[in-house]
């Protein structure tokens, strides 16, 4: 495999890793606060449709982004009400919301545009267009790093850089701020937070809302950057891969970045079986590459690749008792 191909693969990797990363960080907030969320997929899908539709109608990608966040927040709210206010089963709530999303997105898109559940192709300002980072052009001819910078690092949608930025931000919020401390505490032992005079509900709702926002951005990226418009089921299980990445990363921000890059790389490889064959020498069936992230996650869950211990209070609604 030559350098150009590698660069091309990495370029694709970054594009594919972005929605995973955003969704993964989204899940991180919610689950660190003790609210499991297998509804990332649904929120992303809802967001993708909202952004695709609004961007198509208004021609503004930024309005599209807002709409995406709004659509995703709506679902996050329902999840919060079900699993925090009414102490319902968080997993079932997530499953339900995923179904609702996969159906309602098509219904809405169809009724708006009558194009079989698609939104019309976005062009110009309705898309999140690539930005060329400073010095990309001049550096281009610098051997090795020049192309790397120009081809891989530079020339992506702003949302890609936002996603990358969210990693240190999340780390900082989690480990350096009061909110982060309380967030982690409420996911580990809500009683401790409660007896300390802090509202468990408030914290958990805040976390779930952040999850909504980030999923919104992820969805918007899918529809306005990675693709030019929304198509049915366009998230194609990315929400679950993000979930896998979250577990793989053991609920830690930086690890989440690496996990998502890894899984993004797998997805990129799946596009180029020829390259894979060139490297390993034997013909690797594409489905095997598709399944890789899931297999790895199971191995992690099984504790063969280091044990993944979820937040202790994860999945359980909080009930006062001594």
């Amino acid at each position, binding site marked *: 495999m030559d350098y150009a191909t590698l660069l091309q693969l990495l370029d694709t990797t970054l594009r594919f890793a972005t929605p995973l990363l955003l969704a993964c960080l989204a899940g991180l907030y919610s689950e660190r606060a003790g609210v499991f969320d297998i509804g990332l997929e649904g929120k992303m899908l809802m967001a993708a449709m909202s952004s695709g539709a609004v961007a198509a109608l208004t021609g503004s990608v930024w309005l599209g982004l807002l709409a995406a966040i709004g659509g995703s927040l709506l679902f996050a709210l329902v999840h919060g009400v079900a699993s925090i206010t009414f102490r319902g089963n968080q997993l079932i709530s997530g499953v339900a919301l995923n179904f609702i999303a996969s159906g309602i997105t098509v219904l809405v898109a169809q009724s708006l545009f009558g194009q079989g559940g698609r939104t019309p192709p976005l062009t110009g300002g309705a898309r999140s267009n690539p930005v060329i980072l400073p010095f990309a052009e001049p550096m281009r001819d610098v051997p090795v790093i020049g192309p790397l910078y120009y081809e891989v690092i530079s020339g992506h949608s702003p949302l890609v850089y936002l996603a990358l930025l969210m990693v240190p931000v999340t780390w900082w919020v989690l480990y350096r701020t009061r909110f982060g*401390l309380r967030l982690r*505490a409420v996911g*580990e032992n809500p009683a*401790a937070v*409660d*007896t*300390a*005079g802090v509202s468990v509900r408030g914290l958990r709702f805040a976390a779930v809302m952040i999850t909504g926002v980030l999923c919104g951005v992820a969805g918007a990226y899918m529809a306005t950057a990675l693709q030019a418009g929304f198509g049915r089921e366009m998230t194609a299980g990315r929400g679950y891969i993000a979930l896998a990445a979250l577990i793989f990363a053991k609920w830690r921000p930086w690890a989440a970045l690496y996990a998502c890059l890894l899984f993004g790389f797998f997805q990129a490889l799946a596009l180029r079986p020829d390259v894979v064959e060139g490297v390993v020498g034997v013909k690797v069936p594409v489905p095997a590459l598709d399944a890789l992230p899931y297999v790895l996650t199971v191995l992690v869950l099984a504790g063969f690749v280091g044990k993944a211990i979820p937040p202790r209070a994860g999945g359980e609604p909080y009930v006062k008792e*001594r």
Partner: protein
Amino acid sequence: MSVSTDAGRQATAAPTAPYAIELKGISKAFGPVQANKDISIQVAKGSIHGIIGENGAGKSTLMSILYGFYKADRGEIVINGRVTAIPDSQSAIRAGIGMVFQHFKLVQNFTVLENVILGAEEGQMLAGSLAKARRVLRELAEEYELEVDPDALIEDLSVGHQQRVEILKALYRQADILILDEPTGVLTPAEADHLFRILRGLKEQGKTIILITHKLREIMEITDTVSVMRRGEMTATVKTAETSPEQLAELMVGRKVLLHVAKGPANPGATVLDVENLRVKDDQGVERLKGISLKVRAGEILGIAGVAGNGQSELLAVLGGMQAGTGHIRIKGDEIDLTGKHSNGQTRRARGIAHVPEDRQHLGLIMDFTAWENVAFGYHHAPEYQKNRLFMDNDALRADTERKMATFDVRPPIPTLAAKSFSGGNQQKIVVAREIERNPDLLLVGQPTRGVDIGAIEFIHKQIVALRDAGKAILLVSVELDEIMSLSDRIAVMFDGRIMGERDPRSTNERELGLMMAGVTDGGAA
């Protein structure tokens, strides 16, 4: 000697020092259970006030109300002379109240510092708060011997140190009223002594302390005044100086006619249960049983006395096959496995061991199952409950249940009623009926009459004695001394995972046992 709430007032009343805490007519009910009934107490500033009472008497509930964790149905709270509404923990903290719960409220994988500042941070950023907490902790450590490594993870700390963190949390929030709910229940005597030194230090600094405990020794040792609770009511408040363990015990248990179970002398036969050097570690790897050895013979009742949490539960768990252990257990001479797949409730029952567990609601019964389903619980493999090799014979089971309900006077006698719909006492009768009716060689009984009304207590006691007279061996565990006294043929006292000694109920008294239960050995221990 005065036994009245007035006693408490005269004891500490002084114009200069208003009460730190006054509770007036506090009542709290949980569904059908009246946990607190019209409770009033006053606690003087700078004093240590003890509260004693049986399990379920309502102590924790009362304190949780004071801390804003539960909301009282009725009654008012006065702090330092001011009527204070305490709707939530936040306002309790603001009112200067700190509480150390029976079960600690610490985040296991946080450091001590993080736990201390949680909820009391200054500003949005942590850095400042952490620095300040580090400084304050150092001061407190010097002041009250409260030293803990501020950067240690809670999960790495011993229980005693975790408790210090809880106290530090309260002090860091400038609490001048400190509530400790059964703080020594989980401590070794050494740790307990250290705790008391800390409490005295706090008292000298003018802090007011409420101490909940079962242990008379502790009350006598450090409290100024003590209140006694029974079945949700405050039966008395006295000055510690003017009372005695005997009197307190009496107040605790109540002046109820000491149940005198009609029981003839035991005529013990061959050894049925022979336990030798039994050891058990819990999940945290802490040794809960430290080499127990005891024998129970056919036709006798061995009573195990002791304060809750001194290893009785573990003893029952191992004997009942619910927990693994090391050492030897022999039934009628032959060894039984303490680990591995042959050590479980089924194999134990096959060996003729029946078990009335301490906690009927979480162990003895499936609350959502019907009475008849519960009667099969643990015995669902019994041949008489099977229609054929495939199916269970539910009709036979229901019939059997009706029979048992009749003999044990379970009310209402409806086999199809869900276990949760029976009252506590009747739930217990179902369990006892199920186990005793198996006519086992050895019956393990834990807290057979906890939360059960007098009538039921008498009945259950009769059944146990009857089984003894039928030549069966019985191991009885109870925290209620008079129960132990009136039922047992021999009494062994457990403390801190060991047998402190053995006594003959006819030649011993509650005081002697109480001291042994408190770990005060008297050399004469067998």
